[in-house]
Structures are given as C-alpha cells and as structure tokens.
C-alpha cells in the first residue's frame, strides 16, 4: 500500500480532514485530554459523556506531570464525525481542561493496553495456553498447578484476540487497563 493510498473516510494518514462533513457513519476516536489534576475533574469529564449521551469505550487516567499537576485522560469514544467534533469542543471549553488532542484525526498514533488474564486448566489445555501466550508475548506473572495469570501489552484488538483464544482453554478472569496512546513522531 503506497503512502498515498488513503482509505476513504479515514483521517489518520492525512494532514487534511477527509471525513465527509455530514457522514452518519460512526467512527472510533482516541482522545487525549490534558487536565489540571484537581478534585472532581474526572467526574466533570465523565459527566459530560453521560450527560450528553456520548459513548466511552475505554478510559484511562493518571497524573503525568507531578510538578505541574497535569493529568492525562485517554478516552476511546465512538460517534459520527459531527458528534466527535462536539465531544472535542465540549471537552476543550471545560475550565480545568488544558488541551484536547484527537489522536485518531491528528495523525498516526501508538495505542497500548495492558491486560492480566487468568486461565485455569490442566494437562493439554495448560500447555496450549502457555504456547499461545508465548506467541502473543504474554508473560506469566503468577502460577499455581492449576492456573496461570498472564500479563500482556498490546493494542485492544490483540488483547481481544488473546482473550478469545484463552476462552476455550479455561479463561476465568480478565483485567484490562484501558488504552494509553501517544502520537507517533514529534
């Protein structure tokens, strides 16, 4: 695929907004929201999503600048281009919000999620689980004679795929952090 072979409806490989203004097709976008780390900020951001009927597929938050008291909230959301545009503007106008980046629209980005996956099983199932974990570069962080806890990092899709494979092998529990994302390059 050449660099110019841009998928229709996508903006992630172009400096221009190629989305049709009136498209009714829902898109998934990853937003990075830089906020003042003060009490209630997360509640305000989440309240915006529930109050205005927007979706949250994933949300992570942590203070990333301890001296400047800045937190980074990464939100994966879904909506038509008009809704995504509104979400970005609604977030931007909040008093404790410093910046909003639509990582999906602004250019290529890396997205990673961490998952802990507990699998229970014996015999062949156990061996198969270990073998697949190796393929997925998952680490064993806890083990008993009947169970493993795997730790893996990757895109949400990779974690979904791993969890799907573990299901018949004795998946009992999964914990996921949600997506952390950064724009590629500088």
């Amino acid at each position, binding site marked *: 695929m050449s660099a110019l072979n841009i998928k229709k409806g996508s903006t992630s490989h172009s400096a221009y907004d190629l989305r049709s203004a009136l498209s009714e097709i829902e898109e998934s976008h990853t937003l990075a929201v830089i906020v003042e780390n003060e009490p*209630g900020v997360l509640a305000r951001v989440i309240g915006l999503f529930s109050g205005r009927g927007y979706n949250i597929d994933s949300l992570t938050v942590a203070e990333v600048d301890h001296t400047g008291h800045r937190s980074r909230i990464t939100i994966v959301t879904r909506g038509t281009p*008009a809704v995504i*545009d509104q979400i970005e*503007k609604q977030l*931007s*106008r909040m*008093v*404790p919000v410093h910046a909003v980046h639509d990582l999906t629209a602004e250019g290529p980005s890396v997205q990673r999620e961490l998952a802990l996956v507990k699998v229970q099983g014996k015999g062949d199932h156990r061996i198969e689980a270990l073998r697949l974990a190796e393929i997925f570069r998952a680490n064993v962080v806890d083990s008993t004679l009947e169970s493993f806890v795997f730790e893996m990092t990757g895109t949400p899709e990779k974690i979904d795929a791993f969890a799907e494979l573990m299901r018949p092998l004795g998946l009992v529990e999964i914990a996921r952090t949600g997506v952390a994302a950064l724009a590629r390059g500088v």
Partner: protein
Amino acid sequence: MSKQMTGAKMVVQALKDQGVEVVFGYPGGAVLPIYDELFLQNDIRHILVRHEQGAVHMAEGYARSTGKPGVALVTSGPGATNAVTGLTDALMDSIPIVVLTGQVPTFMIGTDGFQEADTVGITRPCTKMNWLVKDTAKLSDTIHQAFHVATHGRPGPVLIDIPKDVQFATADYTPAEKARVSHYQPRTEGDADQIARLVELMETAERPIFYTGGGVINSGPRASQLLRELVAETNFPITSTLMGLGSYPASGKNWVGMLGMHGLYEANLAMHGCDVMINIGARFDDRITGRIKDFSPKSKKAHIDIDPSSINKVIRVDVPIVGDVTRVLEEVLRQWRARGSRTDQRGLASWWKQIDEWRAVKCLSYKNSTTTIKPQYALERLEALTKGMDRYITTEVGQHQMWAAQFLGFEDPNRWMTSGGLGTMGYGLPASIGVQIAHPDALVINVAGEASWLMNMQEMGTAMQFRAPVKQFILNNERLGMVRQWQELLHGERYSSSWSESLPDFVKLAEAFGCKGIKCEDPKDLDDAIMEMIRYDGPVIFDCLVEKHENCFPMIPSGKPHNEMLLSADAAAFRSGAVLV
C-alpha cells in the same frame, strides 16, 4: 505583605475586592461565620430571601440588568440543593453568577452529617465550574478565580463550597491582582480570514438577515451599539431570539420582530427564505430552528459565538467565527467599511418588499373584546402606558412570557429578563427583586401568569422587607395556559391537571404581605388600574383577570419548519402528526 485573616473574613474581603455591593442569601449553620463577618461591615448589602431558589434568581436578575456578576450565599445541604434550579437556569442562559455555599466541616464530609449534601457533586453538571475549598489558604484565590471564570468567555454560574472549619481557620489573604486566574483565557478575537468571508457574503447577499441572540447582550452595551451601526449601514433586516431582545431597538426600522416557535411570521419566513444568515451570539436552539433538515435550506450561514461548542452543534454553518461579539463586530465593520461599504441594493430592495408583504399579514392581530380583558390587550396597554419610562421587565414562563415578548418593545439591552433556555416557572418574581435592588428608582414589572407566580410568591416578603417596589402584573387565566393550549391543540382537549384551582384572592394576599393589591377584570378599567399600579410607591400585586382560553399565536409546532406556521387556532395542521416536545 499579605494579611492574615479567617476564611469567613476572606470571603467578605474577596467579595469587596471584586466590587460586589449586594449579596442575596439565606443563613444557616454552615455559613454562620460568614454571616458574622457580613454583620460587622457596611460595604456589602445582604438581601435576606425567603427561599434559596429566590436568592439565585435574584442574583440572575441583578446580573442580567447590570452586566455585573450576581452573588448568592446559602447554607449547606438544603440551602445548596434549593439553589440547583437557579444554577441550571443561569447555565442555560449564560448568566454570570457566583454562588457561595456552606458545607459541614472537612472532618465530617462523607459521614452523612446534619445538613450535609455532596454539593459539588450535585452542582457539577449545572455550573460552569465549581470548587470545594478544603484549605483556608486557597480560599481567597479560589473566589477570585471563580469571578474570573463566571465573567470570562461564555458567562455562567460558578459555585464555591466552603466547609465551616475552613471559614474559622486563619490564613494569608491573596489579593485579587495576585490571584491565579488559571489558564482560563477564552479567545475573544475573531479569525480575520473568516470575518473577511463574512464580509464578502454581506456584500453579495440578496436576501440577508441578522439573527441575533443573548450573546450580544452578554458581550456588553458596546456590542449593541456596534450592531445598531451595522444594521443601519447595511440596511439588512434583523430578528432576535427571546434572549436577545433589546440589543436592537424594537422601534428600529429594520426590526422584523422576534423569531422562533412563537415568533413573528415575517421573522420566521425571512429566516426560512434568506440567502445569507448572520447569526450573532445565538445558538440555533430547537425553539428557533424547528425541523432541522428544513431549517433555512437555501442560505449560507455565518455564526459568531464565543463558545466554539455552539458552532456546528445543531446547524452546520459555512462561516464559523469564534470570538466575542464586540470584538468581532468591530472587525466586521472595519473590514466592510474599508472595502467600500457595499451591499446589493437592488436585491435588498426586493427583499424588503417581500418582508413588507409578510408584515402585512399582521400575525399578532387578535380578536379583542369589550367585556373580557384579552391578555394581548393587557400587554398592549401596559406597553403604551409605560413606554419611555425607565422600565425593566421580567417574566415567568408560559403564554404570558411569549405575549410579553411579542407585545412589549425593548429599546435597550439588559431591560428584559426572562428564563429562556430552562424555562423556569417561578423565575420572574425573584428576578424582578434582583433587578429592583440594582436599579432602585426604575419601574420594574414582572409580567406573570398566576401559576408560575405562585411558585415563588414567598419572595413578596423579601420585596416588602427591602422596599423593592416591584410590580407583579399577573395575567390570571386560572389555567396553566401553555399546557392548556397544547392539550387543546395536541391532546384531544383533555385538560389533564391544567386548571389553577383553589387560587388565592390576590388582593387579600397582597394585603397579607402588607403591599398593594389591584384587581381588574373589565377592559374599561384597565388603563386606570395600570396607572394606579405604576404610581403606587411600593410593591403591587396586580391581578388581571384575562380571557381563560386564549391561545398564543403564531406558533410553529416543534418538528415543523419555519414556513409551516400556525397563525390561528385552526388545529387541522396539527393532525398531520407533528410531535411536540
């Protein structure tokens, strides 16, 4: 050199430093230290209300009529929850108010203490910003910041929750000029290139219209002045939302009246048929647009708004301009004049001819009566008898509100206070008191319906105590008029719970409060009765018994486009299945 003082003293000091002259409030356990400090000084006047909702609406009335932020002070728990309606009202209408709430001491927060409520949690969605201050050292800084946030960008309500121990503790006072006003510095300057595109549109427009809103008023008197210059020089027609009345004078020759659900025929048809729409500080509210897909289908639209999220929220526009109305209009005028002040004169001439034909429909005409007072007639007489006076009007919510907007003329901004976005019944009486406190010598009239008025009638006590000679002009149809109208037109004339039964005798009620009551039911007596109300030196409750089944027209059923307007009670148009919300 910073000064040490208690949190309670800090509150009063910070309010003084912010230029606050009046606080509307109600004391309670969690704010007693602040009330102590108020007691010990004479710079800030405290108006004791009868219910916290009243305090917030008074602060709103004060703010809308002065352009300065209004301040309310209430206690924790029920004091704070009672303020919620007022906060939401101010948020919807972009009114700058600062509400201070007491809170249980920090060590009790979370223990379900007496009169404890999660005030910042409850008010988060109905404030522009709120703060729980847990450290006295941060209190004065937070108050200064709160005033900054309330009055900058799109104005709105803010709330500061102050635990009682924070009020007692001592710390350094941060003066206003040293306060950290945060990074919150919304953009006020419009993009020059977008303004240039607007100017080009104006030069070639054949059927232009200015569609103005509350943003013009919020931007300050200079914005109205610039708007008037722009209208006079371009000769474009101008309409306004309910919130924007007065920014352009009702007597101005380019005025085509209010638009929207109960707006004028000519205004709505001009919006529908225009080729260039210039939205200045309005937000394409659903009461304005009707059915979105048929809204002004053939026009190029420009939108000037200080809040970027208002642009393209409901209606996609061609020329988005984020900025303060005053700054943007200055630049529009500068560029347009620099390019030779051009307009399409021929196009405009035929546009005005078309508008005059629409005007000739006389959409506000109604069938008058010699035996019953028609509400429209009552307002026509009120308008005629108070015209030219130093007059401020507030309203409640419902039919009377729409008739007031249709039949009263506003010549200047900040003279019209009504609950637009939230539609809060019970707003008008306290708002009128807030206006009167700010303008003690002016004639302040609350045009009310009897049902709305009863919702906050306890505030007559406040009006009496503080000698606020507000005139309560109640159009009494013994019905929840707008509800009744919809039931008649849309719900098979099933008048479910829309009668105002067991009404008080308003004249006796007035006497009970110690003010004047006037009752009028004959059109022949109306003028004298209105004059008696105006001349009386003190609050008046005017019980104007009007026709009980009058409907408010024109009306665009929601979900209908602008050109499908009802001018009379012909219900046939409704049967096509429009769903009103």
